[in-house]
């Protein structure tokens, strides 16, 4: 019964994620911790598996459209995977309330970037029907800044069990001069490796609950496949508002929990 519930939860997280371009991890970690009573560290490790699933499924689609900059992605992955592995080792030293507070702050920050990005996406030309995308020539700039931001994004990923897209995309788009479509695809591409760098550490420590991770990943996989197909056809405006509403709810719920003395 619990497995079925987790498949459904994963399905909706994957669907929302694919429709709005965020990974499912940002929803899954707090839901697992708050509503399933799972200790925050296990919730993080378990949701990382779902994050890898989303990234693998969706970035294989982006790669076929040739919108992913593998070289840029690989370079920034040096920083994201280092940050993710290091914080995955250090997560024991972080106070639980502190982690939850950081998560709540990240939910707020992500809600804002999602709302801001919506305004920008309208200006982008829609995906052509034949799937062939022309990307204007560009040269990634400010590598030191990009690498530093990636280190932070990776660190947060290892600490919170998320993909970190809401940091990577704006950094590549705004600071490194990469077209938004390429930044989105490349961020998606990097998320799998970033999450794996910390997930391997969590797994070795026994912090990935396999009996929860498997049904979640099954649901996330189905949800993101459906979402990727629906995305060009559906009006994402209301989906974005729904997502932001859920994220704000989770942030508030986390805050309440911290003030009540934290989770187990």
């Amino acid at each position, binding site marked *: 019964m619990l*497995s079925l519930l987790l*498949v459904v939860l994963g399905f909706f997280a994957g669907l929302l994620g694919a429709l709005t371009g965020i990974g499912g991890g940002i929803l899954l970690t707090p839901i697992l911790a708050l509503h399933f009573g799972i200790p925050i560290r296990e919730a993080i490790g378990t949701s990382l*598996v779902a994050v*890898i*699933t989303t*990234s*693998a*499924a969706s*970035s*294989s*689609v982006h*790669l*076929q459209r*040739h919108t*992913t*900059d*593998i*070289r*840029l992605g*690989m*370079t920034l*992955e*040096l920083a994201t*995977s*280092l940050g993710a*592995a290091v914080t*995955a*080792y250090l997560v*024991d030293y972080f106070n639980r309330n502190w982690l939850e507070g950081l998560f709540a702050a990240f939910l707020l920050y992500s809600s804002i970037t999602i709302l801001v990005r919506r305004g920008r996406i309208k200006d982008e030309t829609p995906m052509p029907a034949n799937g062939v995308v022309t*990307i204007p*020539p*560009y*040269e*990634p700039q400010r590598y030191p800044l990009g690498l530093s931001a990636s280190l932070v994004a990776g660190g947060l990923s290892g600490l919170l069990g998320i993909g970190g897209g809401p940091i990577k995309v704006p950094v590549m788009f705004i600071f490194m001069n990469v077209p938004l479509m390429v930044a989105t695809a490349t961020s998606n591409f990097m998320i*799998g*490796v970033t*999450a*794996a*760098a*910390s*997930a*391997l*550490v969590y*797994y*070795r*420590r*026994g912090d*990935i609950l*396999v*009996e929860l*991770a*498997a*049904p979640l*990943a*099954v649901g996330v*996989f*189905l949800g993101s496949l459906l979402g990727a197909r629906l995305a060009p056809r559906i009006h994402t405006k209301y989906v974005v508002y729904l997502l932001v509403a859920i994220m704000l709810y989770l942030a508030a719920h986390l805050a309440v929990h911290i003030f009540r003395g934290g989770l187990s």
Partner: protein
Amino acid sequence: MSEVREPGFDRIVALVLRWGAYGCFFIMLAGLLTGLFLHGQLPARIERAGVLLMLATPVVRVAVACFLFFHEKDWKYGTISLGVLTILLLGAVFGIGEH
């Protein structure tokens, strides 16, 4: 540099990710379904295999890209990929604080 797209390169890396994602999906699904009918260790073992394959997929993806870069004599990005691979493998080898 970055505007040069290599369709073959993209396709091979995409294949690795797709096979990994679909493979894990079916293995985990098999684990869940056998869990409905069977009790004991088998369903959990199948699910664990699926999770491990999922964790391995990005590592294989980096290894394949690393090989392709060196194959193209692109030393710079081959070395970068090797660095990423090293970080991933270090995390897999040195588990600390196990409980």
